[in-house]
């Protein structure tokens, strides 16, 4: 599916705290932003890894949760009308002849922008793969790391592996449509909503599914089609489970992903930038937050905010080489206050 290109001033890759604050800083300079994120929500690591963990080192906020920080940043960016594109991974980034950049996502979205800001943190969140030998041969055929359409699993013999919310939720949600449902987890404890755990136990009681204790050690099948697995129980004994579909749910991890293919200089999976503009080796492509590196770099949200402010000035000058930038304060400038909708 290819769509007509969305034309904008800036494409920000990553809607974590630094990407969100960049919208604000760029907005003060009248630059319109589109944000693209692989997650289904804003906030990046703050939302995905530690939404409820308190953060203590945001200036003027003695304590704030990842979730709340995200909400406040969204609120602060809102006057500038950013457009958010979730569940999209940027796959391609190329420079056009007219000096602009073209961005393509895995979902078929195409953007053309004057400036690119990479605020991708540790890279893209991707499912953790269990270290079972030969699992790659089954991926996409009978091993899946996400459920896109429940209908694809109708009348299948499904085995789900894991003990978190995703594992439990899909066990419960898919159970009515599958031929057989089995869940395997390494212990009889779960890090999932207690209600889901109770529901799962109830389904086992009603003999509508089976629960196994243990860890999958081997897969069996042909040409990517699974016929069963070998699991090791906590007593050290191996046992077999018959299934034609395996859904491992072990949470997400961060991988640099396609960024490595964009022709930028990299250093240990980070993007080196200068500390005046936070520009990468490619003029017009900037990198802020955890993804960049420079002498003295600290991976702090607060540092990313500073980087966003300086980057915005440089990005404006890059996109408008002939315009004069007058540095202004939000406290005193009525033009900035108008942009913020408060004057």
């Amino acid at each position, binding site marked *: 599916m290819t769509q007509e290109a969305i034309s904008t001033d800036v494409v920000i890759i990553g809607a974590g705290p630094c990407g969100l604050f960049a919208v604000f800083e760029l907005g003060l300079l009248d630059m319109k932003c589109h944000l693209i994120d692989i997650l289904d929500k804003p906030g990046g690591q703050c939302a995905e*890894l*530690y939404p409820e963990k308190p953060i203590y080192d945001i200036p003027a906020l003695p304590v704030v949760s990842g979730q709340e920080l995200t909400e406040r940043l969204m609120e602060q960016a809102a006057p500038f009308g950013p457009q958010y594109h979730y569940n999209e991974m940027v796959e391609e980034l190329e420079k056009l002849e007219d000096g602009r950049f073209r961005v393509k996502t895995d979902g078929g979205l195409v953007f053309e922008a004057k400036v690119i800001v990479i605020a991708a943190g540790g890279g893209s969140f991707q499912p*953790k793969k*269990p*270290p079972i030998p030969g699992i790659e041969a089954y991926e996409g055929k009978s091993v899946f790391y996400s459920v896109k359409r429940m209908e694809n699993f109708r009348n299948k013999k499904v085995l789900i592996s*894991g*003990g*978190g919310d995703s594992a439990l939720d899909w066990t419960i949600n898919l159970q009515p449509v599958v031929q057989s449902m089995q869940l395997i*987890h*390494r*212990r009889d*404890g779960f*890090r999932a909503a207690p209600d889901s755990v109770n529901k799962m136990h109830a389904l086992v009681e009603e003999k509508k599914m089976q629960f196994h204790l243990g*860890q999958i050690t081997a897969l069996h099948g042909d040409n990517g089609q699974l016929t069963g697995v070998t699991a*090791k129980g*906590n007593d*050290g004994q191996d046992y077999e489970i018959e299934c034609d579909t395996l859904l491992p749910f*072990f*949470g997400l991890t961060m991988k640099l992903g396609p960024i490595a293919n964009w022709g930028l200089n990299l250093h*240990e*999976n980070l993007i080196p930038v200068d500390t005046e503009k936070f520009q990468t080796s490619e003029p017009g492509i900037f990198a802020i937050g955890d993804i960049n590196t420079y002498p003295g770099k600290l991976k702090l949200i607060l540092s990313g905010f500073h980087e966003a402010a300086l980057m915005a000035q440089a990005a404006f000058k890059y996109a408008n080489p002939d315009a004069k930038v007058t540095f202004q304060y939000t406290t005193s400038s009525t033009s900035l206050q108008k942009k913020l909708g408060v004057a």
Partner: protein
Amino acid sequence: MRIILVDGKGCEHELEAVEGWRVMEIIRDYGFPIVAECGGACACGTCQVEVDPEWASKLHEPREDELDQLDQNYGGEWSRLSCQLIMTPELDGLRVRLADIAIREAA
């Protein structure tokens, strides 16, 4: 006081341990390529080790957050996070094997 570390290739190393240090810190201090991404906050699971079964009973029970990380990082029966194991004289001679997930790939 010492710990015995079995590395990714199966080679044994005897490391001088310091009381009060985390096993992860000792391994890292010796320059082994342990990932230990979160630095000891029990938040990433990338300092996983397999404890010799003979030593397992001498360790304190894992806390809930350690169990969560072992769940998400494919822990086995004897798996622990080395950042949650703090050296005491009772653990002199502790034998652990570095899990694959904890070994930093060469860049």
